[in-house]
């Protein structure tokens, strides 16, 4: 494999040998150094990648923790909301009752405008009867109005007005000769009594046998009962 080293020209061979060794050594060193440097660069790059990955992972973990916190908060809030709803549900019946009652009271007081189906009762004096000597026998008295209003209230009328004047809880009606006075305002016949409420109930209670309707007829009063789809009454504060 190896040739015998030439003994002749030893001097020149020696320098040439040295030169070759130098070149080989330099090349080897270069390769080793370059390889070392490359590996180091690679490691650095890897390290930077790893660091980046690490930071991303930390970010991710952070976000996940935040997510968890928020989810917990959400759960908390939902729980609270459910509590509220539960308490609501408990109190709902009460509230509804209160609300209905308040509404009824307001209607009764006339604080809010009232509208809806209802009836219109018109009471008019009968025609003059020359045979009769007592005119009281054929004119409308406040007692007739009272009975109608009473009947209407009993049968659940929300609000009642006479000739457009809505009745309050403290309204008063007085007989004043040929006219009646309602809250200081005079109204002559005919008296148009309007009531908002369930029209069927109202009418049937008015027309009950031996009831108000029959009484009025027997008192020679012209009574007309009309069923209305929509009756509108302003609130009293508007009128005042």
């Amino acid at each position, binding site marked *: *494999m*190896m*040739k*015998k*080293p030439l003994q002749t020209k030893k001097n020149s*061979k020696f320098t*040439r*040998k*040295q030169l*070759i*060794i*130098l*070149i*080989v*050594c*330099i*090349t*080897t*060193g*270069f*390769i*080793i*150094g*370059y*390889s*070392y*440097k*490359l*590996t180091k660069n*690679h490691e650095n790059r890897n390290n930077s990648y790893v660091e980046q990955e690490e930071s991303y992972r930390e970010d991710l973990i952070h976000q996940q923790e935040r997510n968890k916190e928020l989810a917990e908060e959400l759960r908390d809030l939902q729980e609270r909301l459910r509590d509220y709803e539960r308490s609501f549900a408990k109190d709902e019946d009460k509230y509804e009752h209160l609300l209905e009652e308040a509404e009824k009271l307001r209607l009764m007081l006339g604080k809010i405008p009232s509208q809806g189906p209802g009836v219109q009762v018109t009471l008019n004096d009968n025609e003059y009867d020359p045979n009769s000597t007592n005119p009281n026998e054929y004119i409308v008295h406040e007692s007739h109005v009272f009975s109608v209003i009473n009947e209407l209230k009993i049968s659940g009328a929300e609000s009642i007005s006479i000739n457009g004047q809505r009745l309050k809880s403290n309204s008063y009606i007085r007989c004043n000769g040929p006219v009646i006075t309602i809250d200081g305002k005079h109204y002559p016949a005919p008296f148009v009594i309007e009531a908002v409420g369930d029209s069927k109930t109202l009418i049937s209670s008015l027309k009950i046998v031996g009831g108000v309707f029959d009484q009025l007829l027997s008192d020679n009063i012209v009574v007309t009962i009309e069923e209305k789809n929509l009756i509108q009454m302003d609130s009293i504060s508007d009128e005042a």
Partner: protein
Amino acid sequence: MWLPLLGLILGLSLGVLTDIQIPAIYENYLSIAVLAALDTLFGGIRANLQQVYDDKVFVSGFFFNIALAAGLAFLGVHLGVDLYLAAIFAFGVRLFQNIAVIRRILISKWEERHIKKDENTV
């Protein structure tokens, strides 16, 4: 005697200081080239110690081995076979063998000198 060491240091500093970038695929070849260079270097030292050193064999072996190793690695990459392992194995074994031979020669030489010294003293 100091010339090889000087050359090695010079080459090392050159290699560290150069700023050439090569694609990552070729870094495998470089590692094999390192092995080949080291193998040839130790082979040369052994040959020198065994008095069978030859310039042409040394230089041609140096560059041919590097080229062969790189070529093998290249072929391996393109064939999907890890042929560079063969080169690493071969060079590694030879490296160890060379170093072992060098060690033995050095030890025997050292013993010879020792015996001579003893003879001289005696």
